[in-house]
């Protein structure tokens, strides 16, 4: 191999690596800059509980909002209501049963663009082995080099069997879920027809 062809080989390898890296970071959620918080109400008292671990992808191109897509996986056992012994209770069968259902997820389907940087994502919410179609209004924010997606939705914890009926007397059925999902700068590039690999 001549020194010249070796340089070409290195250059090509470098470009290939850069391309793979770009694809991998396409729309990936930066969990450290994002938050998913569930608000439970017990006898009128709102209690905010963040999910500590989640991952996913949001693909969005302002020029083609209808092509947006979102896939988010939340570790069901990572809900933090502020006390470790309570958190352990929430992982049990009566609540999330996170041994059998480790992941809660959302997969977007139809996207309905609204005004600039707003869109409605209809998709499937799955928790504890049950699924429901929901529509979430999402607001897009461009902050510096990154793009953030904000929204909230209400769900029925009874529908998903989260908290057995004993709890109905003190705990509201409705749970508000708010999210702030921040992607990397790659979100600003046109949506690529790629689904990032998920486990």
């Amino acid at each position, binding site marked *: 191999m001549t020194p010249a062809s070796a340089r070409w080989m290195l250059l090509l390898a470098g470009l290939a690596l850069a391309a793979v890296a770009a694809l991998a970071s396409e729309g990936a959620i930066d969990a450290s800059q994002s938050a998913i918080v569930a608000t439970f109400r*017990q*006898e009128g008292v709102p*209690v*905010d509980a963040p999910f500590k671990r989640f991952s996913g992808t949001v693909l969005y191109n302002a020029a083609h909002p209808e092509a947006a897509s979102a896939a988010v996986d939340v570790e069901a056992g990572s809900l933090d*209501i*502020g*006390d470790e*012994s309570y958190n352990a209770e929430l992982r049990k069968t009566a609540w999330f049963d996170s041994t059998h259902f480790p992941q809660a997820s959302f997969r977007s389907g139809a996207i309905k663009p609204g005004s600039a940087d707003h869109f409605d994502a209809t998709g499937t919410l799955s928790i504890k082995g049950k699924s429901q179609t929901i529509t979430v209004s999402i607001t897009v924010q461009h902050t510096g080099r990154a793009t953030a997606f904000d929204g909230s939705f209400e769900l029925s914890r009874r529908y998903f069997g989260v908290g057995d009926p004993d709890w109905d007397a*003190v*705990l509201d059925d409705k749970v508000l879920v708010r999210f702030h999902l921040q992607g990397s700068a790659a979100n600003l590039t046109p949506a690529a027809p790629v689904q990032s690999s998920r486990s």
Partner: protein
Amino acid sequence: MTTAYTRTAVALHWLVAALVITALTLGWSMTDMVFSPLKLRLFNWHKWLGVTVLALMLLRSFWRLTHPPPALLPMPAWQRVASKLVHGLLYVMLLVQPLTGWLYSNASGIPVVYLGLIPLPNLVGKDKVLDEIARNVHDAGGWVLAVLIGLHLLGAMKHYYHDRDDTLGRMLRWQSS
């Protein structure tokens, strides 16, 4: 100089006594319970009792300042000092204990909603370090309060059984004024 407590003072005394003893009993029993709907419910009741005590104690302090209580009955100087000390500390603790509870709840990320209807302002935001400190202070405060109530009770019994004076009687008398 008046020799009697006003009806308001007598009513406030016994109302606060009943609420505080209930709150203390709840506080000690609920914390050891396993996670259950009843546990959360008792926590709420405990907080509502605390907020009620705080409000009544503010009213009571105002009432005491505007309606001086009857003078102490004749007794040795050290007993006067002890009486004033225990009464003073009871007032302080009955105002402070609900506040540290409120702070503790807020620091652990839980707002206080009086009777499940009236949201009270958050004194502090969620804070792990403060949560731990407030928990210890509120826990210790419960014991301090229990000791003060014990001393107060012993004093009343001493005046009733030993001195046979009117110290307890005048707090039991419901007379017009």
